[in-house]
């Protein structure tokens, strides 16, 4: 009937308070890389979840290979050769690679024709072969807990390939990867396409789409905006469609005006739980009106620096001074009071209590003091008023206003809520760790502007990011970290992206 392998016609899906997909129709050809582009909360993941069997559409029809289907469960989707590689991995960390891959479809043999058992040895061989064929090399006998994030992602991909998926859906696959790993993954995706698979790529990163995708559907607020031929479209045009307005990639900012010293870190050394030094003898200062950014490849100690300053990690030696006062051994609460705002990397496990409602989360750092409470009694009215004000001021979107459970909010809006809460503390020092991770372009621009506005208001800002572009865009001063040591501290103007990259790899020393 048509040359589409997947067709979704007039799909509508509603959730309480929100229309996630509004009459969306797309068709995907066999053997292409089809990208779904949109901001957080635009409905990309919802649309694909219906293909993956997690939800059923309220309205509309799905055709697979020309046949009308109702996909009622992920198992059903697997039978139709549809496999989904999730953004948040669904792996059992105590199981080996093979055990995870065969989970649910275990090859059963019978010992002496009688006693059934799982044929692990054969499965190991099969997975090894599979992983070689697709260039996804991984040791099938290793435990998941011992693998890096990018290795775990390979396991997720192998899992769907093992189930003989022909249509592979990747949900924001690069959100957790380093630049090199992203490069590798995109190559894998291309080679999967070349071997005849159909790929659906959910993302909000335009460069990735430009690089690998053949066609691209743009969603905005649940509606299909346009269907594009990627080769013939400019990145700027795609961005405009996605956000619904002009976007600038370069943050605009006035020249920095440094004033008094706010944070002074002297010879900071931090050990991790195993007694291994992850931060070694790090010293730097941040002045009022300065954005100090730490650049580095993931897991080089930058998060531990932030945790040590905020008090979440113990300092093994060295001093931290805030406004001239030694806070090295202060409690977390006292540091907050002394003037530290902290936007943590892991917003779901640190930044928010997901089962609390939005207004409560917005007051999470002020609930114990006036006007939020008086003599130990909470003032719920103040919670509500403050929450309503914040929703307005920071444009936080949620299904049921201040009463929304934060768990049900999109990642971008969760991040907005955290940033709103931390800015409202009016702290002289603000720490941002990966503030734009998993956040869409429109929101990234917004967050960058907020950081710069806070700087202009005289805050000292520590920005830790894995995105080099972000650092080059926003920072006034850059410190490059490698293996727990600051390799170089210099003003933004004096460094090129390439130089920073070299310091990040430890290739260049002072």
């Amino acid at each position, binding site marked *: 009937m048509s040359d589409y392998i997947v067709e979704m016609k007039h799909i509508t899906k509603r959730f309480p308070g929100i229309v996630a997909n509004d009459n969306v129709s797309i068709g995907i050809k066999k053997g292409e890389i089809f990208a779904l582009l949109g901001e957080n909360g635009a409905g990309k993941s919802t649309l694909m979840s219906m293909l993956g069997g997690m*939800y*059923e*559409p*309220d*309205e509309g029809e799905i055709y697979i290979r020309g046949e009308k289907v109702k996909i009622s469960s992920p198992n059903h989707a697997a039978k139709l050769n549809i496999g989904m590689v999730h953004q948040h991995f669904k792996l059992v960390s105590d199981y080996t690679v093979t055990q995870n891959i065969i989970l649910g479809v275990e090859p059963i043999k019978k010992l002496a024709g009688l006693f059934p058992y799982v044929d692990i040895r054969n499965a190991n061989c099969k997975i090894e072969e599979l992983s070689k064929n697709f260039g996804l090399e991984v040791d099938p006998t290793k435990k998941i807990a011992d693998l890096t994030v990018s290795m775990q992602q390979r396991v997720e991909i192998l899992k769907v390939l093992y189930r003989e998926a022909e249509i592979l859906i990747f949900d924001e696959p690069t959100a957790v990867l380093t630049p090199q790993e992203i490069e590798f993954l995109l190559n894998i995706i291309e080679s999967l396409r070349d071997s005849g698979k159909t790929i659906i790529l959910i993302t909000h990163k335009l460069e990735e789409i430009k690089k690998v995708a053949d066609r691209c559907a743009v969603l905005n607020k649940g509606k299909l905006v346009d269907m594009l031929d990627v080769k013939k479209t400019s990145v700027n045009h795609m961005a405009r469609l996605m956000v619904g307005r002009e976007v600038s990639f370069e943050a605009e900012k006035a020249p920095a005006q440094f004033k008094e010293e706010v944070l002074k870190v002297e010879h900071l050394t931090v050990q991790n739980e195993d007694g291994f030094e992850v931060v070694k003898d790090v010293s730097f200062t941040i002045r009022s009106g300065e954005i100090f950014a730490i650049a580095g490849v993931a897991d080089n100690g930058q998060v531990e620096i932030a945790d040590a300053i*905020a008090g*979440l990690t113990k300092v093994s030696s060295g001093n931290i001074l805030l406004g001239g006062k030694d806070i090295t051994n202060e*409690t*977390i*609460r006292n*540091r*907050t009071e002394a003037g530290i705002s*902290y936007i*943590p990397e892991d917003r779901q*496990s*640190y*930044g*928010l*209590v*997901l*089962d*609390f409602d939005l207004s409560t989360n917005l007051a*999470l*750092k002020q*609930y*114990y003091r006036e006007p939020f*409470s008086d003599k*130990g*009694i*909470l003032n*719920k009215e103040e919670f509500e008023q403050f929450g309503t004000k914040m929703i307005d001021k920071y444009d936080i979107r949620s299904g049921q206003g201040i009463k929304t459970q934060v768990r049900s909010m999109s990642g971008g809006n969760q991040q907005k809520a955290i940033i709103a809460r931390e800015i409202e503390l009016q702290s002289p020092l603000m720490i941002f760790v990966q503030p734009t991770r998993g956040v869409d372009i429109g929101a990234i621009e917004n967050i960058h502007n907020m950081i710069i506005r806070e700087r202009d208001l005289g805050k000292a800002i520590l920005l830790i990011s894995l995105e080099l572009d972000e650092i080059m865009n926003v920072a006034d001063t850059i410190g490059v970290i490698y293996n727990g040591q600051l390799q170089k501290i210099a003003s933004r103007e004096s460094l090129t992206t390439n130089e920073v990259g070299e310091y990040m790899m430890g290739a260049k020393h002072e």
Partner: protein
Amino acid sequence: MSKDKIKRSLRYSLIRPISNEKWQPISIPLVAILISFIAAAIVILLIGKNPLQAFYNLLQGAGILPKASYAGYKSMLTDFLSLLNAMTPLVFASLAVAVAFRAGLFNIGVSGQMLVSGFLATIIVGYSGLDAIVAKPLVLLIGIVAGGLMGGLVGWLKYKFNINEVVSTIMLNYIAQYVISFFIQMYYIDPVSRQSQYVSEAARLTLVNVEIGNLKMDIPLGFILAILTAVLIKFIMDKTVVGFELKAVGSNRKAAKYAGINVGRNTVLAMVISGGLAGLAGVTYYLGYFASIQPKVLSSIGFDSIAVSLLGNSHPIGVIFSSFLVSTIEQGSTYMSSQAGIRQEISSVIVGLILLFSACGVYMKYKVSRLKEKEANRKESEA
């Protein structure tokens, strides 16, 4: 096809009463209770008796419905007061479990905490000959302090050495059970009853055989305290900074720490409060409902309370209702067995069924939302 349709719409009409999410905290336990009574009715039918008769007798025995005749000095009111007397320790114990649960802790040691505080109050006040006006408040105080200290120990072990509270409370249960059994048998044994000697009337929290009019009744002073305590706990959990921090720690320890909440202190505090409530359960049990302690026996209340708390959604007010229900069935069982000829153990079966079905609450919630979604889908596709 149409048969299928009827089946489906029937199924949907079954779930409709519990499909409103706002009312689910109340509607799901109610449905769980309803299902368990239906199951109990089937059990009673299987042994050839009339279930309606049995349930009626149950309510009569508990003093909620009038019996056909009463012995001298007895009436429906006396029966009802005995029900409240039996229910009092269960309310405290269930509150103890609920508070710990809200703070993300599982207090399995309520029985042990009850026993320790009951024992200490018995030997310090129960055998002392103090006047009622001093003795009764002192008993309560000892209950709170002893239980609180024992709970606090568990919290401290968790905070300091990361010892799982489930393990430490079970172990402490054994220690309490046997150490106290040793002391009772060595020093406080009543040779006739083979239990500890009776405590003085002055120390007891239940006024026994009080004559009012021509009735003799037991007045459980602790009951009023239990209700007030439930209201107080609700206030603390919902309206105070202390409750806010406990709930934050219970929902997400990492985020609580990040927000500047002292997680260790709150873990200990939650266990102190929980233990203190268990202590109150202990004194209202061993110096109220009973007046002595049976050696080598842990009260089953400590374990029932886990399920009762679950049935009440770990909500202080919900706990009052679930305690009332469970106590009613247990209290009424004697009368049921004498009237309907159904063995008393059947009441334990009913309680067991209720607790079993109430534990399925989460599953019901999931199933309902799933069915609701399916039904909505179907309607749309038909339209």
